[in-house]
């Protein structure tokens, strides 16, 4: 191979200089770039050894692998069984998929009369301009009730796992230093000023989204998430002392309990009286007005409260291990 140009000339070309600039070797003005090269990751030999030793010890002591013949057999069998289970599951799912109807076929469940009915009669049956809200909070309200309950149960589970007991651990400096939030900037004045302006706006916007759930895109879940984000911002700016004045574990419990119970009772009543097409005594109002569409507005408020409380509770639990 012959060289068509000399090396010095080659280095002066635009393309080479661009490549050098992108890969961070050279800066067009400063020469070599000032960035300190990243240190290489060196795995900690000691820690890995300790981990291995601990693991061996646990297996020897807790499961007694030397004498427990059944467990030794189980350990050998376990990997094979896991592989077999996975393969069986994959096969079953693939076979099931092959039975699905082809995309776009006329007889598919996705193009039967249900969706057409929702679109045609949705406004008349539910009184909600937003068909999606009419579907999830009227036709399929029990499904949404289950979703709200799932959120509540998830918070309970996190509470069981992460809750900090007040008796032990709290107060000692070493325990405090282990927590992630220890090094977080506290009482940052810039954040405080900005959040003092933003938090009321965010919460009002969330309330707007919830109350307009049956008129415009939005509803309980999205509005509740917005309110929860506003509460989290407030907590980050001003700390737990300020939020505990209006939101404690007790508040969370009562709000969730009342919202879920009201939801359950209201929807049970409407199903007891025969869902739709029968007289339930709940006026639907004029479509388009704020107070209209029967039960959808109160149910939206319930869902919004549950979601907002759940978001805040998750954050508080992960941050501090309590409210």
């Amino acid at each position: 191979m012959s060289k068509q140009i000399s090396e010095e000339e080659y280095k002066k070309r635009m393309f080479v200089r661009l490549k050098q600039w992108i890969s961070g070797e050279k800066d067009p003005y400063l020469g070599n770039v000032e960035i300190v090269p990243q240190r290489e990751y060196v795995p900690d030999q000691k820690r890995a050894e300790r981990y291995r030793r601990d693991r061996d010890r646990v297996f020897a002591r807790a499961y007694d692998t030397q004498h427990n013949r059944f467990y030794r057999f189980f350990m050998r069998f376990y990997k094979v069984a896991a592989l077999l289970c996975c393969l069986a599951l994959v096969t079953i799912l693939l076979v099931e998929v092959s039975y699905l109807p082809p995309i776009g076929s006329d007889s598919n469940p996705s193009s039967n009369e249900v969706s057409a009915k929702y679109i045609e009669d949705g406004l008349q049956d539910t009184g909600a301009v937003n068909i999606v809200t009419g579907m999830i909070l009227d036709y399929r309200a029990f499904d949404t009730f289950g979703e709200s309950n799932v959120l509540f149960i998830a918070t309970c589970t996190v509470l069981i796992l992460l809750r900090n007991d007040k008796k032990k651990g709290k107060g000692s400096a070493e325990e405090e230093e282990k927590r992630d939030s220890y090094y977080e900037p506290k009482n940052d004045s810039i954040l405080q000023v900005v959040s003092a302006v933003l938090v009321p706006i965010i919460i009002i916007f969330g309330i707007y989204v919830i109350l307009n759930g049956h008129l415009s895109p939005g509803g309980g879940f999205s509005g509740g998430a917005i309110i929860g984000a506003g509460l989290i911002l407030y907590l980050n700016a001003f700390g737990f002392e300020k939020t505990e004045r209006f939101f404690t574990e007790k508040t969370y419990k009562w709000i969730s309990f009342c919202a879920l119970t009201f939801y359950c009772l209201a929807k049970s009543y409407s199903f007891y009286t025969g869902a739709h097409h029968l007289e339930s005594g709940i006026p639907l109002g004029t479509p388009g007005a704020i107070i209209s569409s029967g039960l959808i507005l109160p149910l939206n408020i319930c869902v919004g409260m549950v979601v907002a409380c759940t978001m805040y509770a998750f954050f508080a639990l992960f941050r501090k291990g309590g409210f």
Partner: protein
Amino acid sequence: MEILKWTQFTLGTLMLLCGILIFIVQILGVYKFKYVLNRMHAAAIGDTLGIGISLVGLMILSGWNFTTLKLGLVVVFLWCSSPVSSHLISRLEAVTDPNIDRYCEVQEEIRQILDDENKAQKEEE
């Protein structure tokens, strides 16, 4: 009227392209730099300038209606919030990194303030 429409279209598209260019610079910077503060500087460019120019382009394209007002409110919200988040990240880095003067110059007064803050926080806990 026709000319007005064409100017609106060209202006809006130019703004959007500018925004996209700034986003490209941001992504290049985020992947090119190695140190937190450098990377965060690059990321903050896109969060403020890139988003701002793109949304102004969209405002011009959408014309004079309610959507424009909403987009303007989005710009105000982002310009309030994203510099604050960048500030918080940089402050966390400055407080927690004991070897920060290996990467950038730290003036003596600022170092004093950081040390005091560290101590005050430890006493407060």
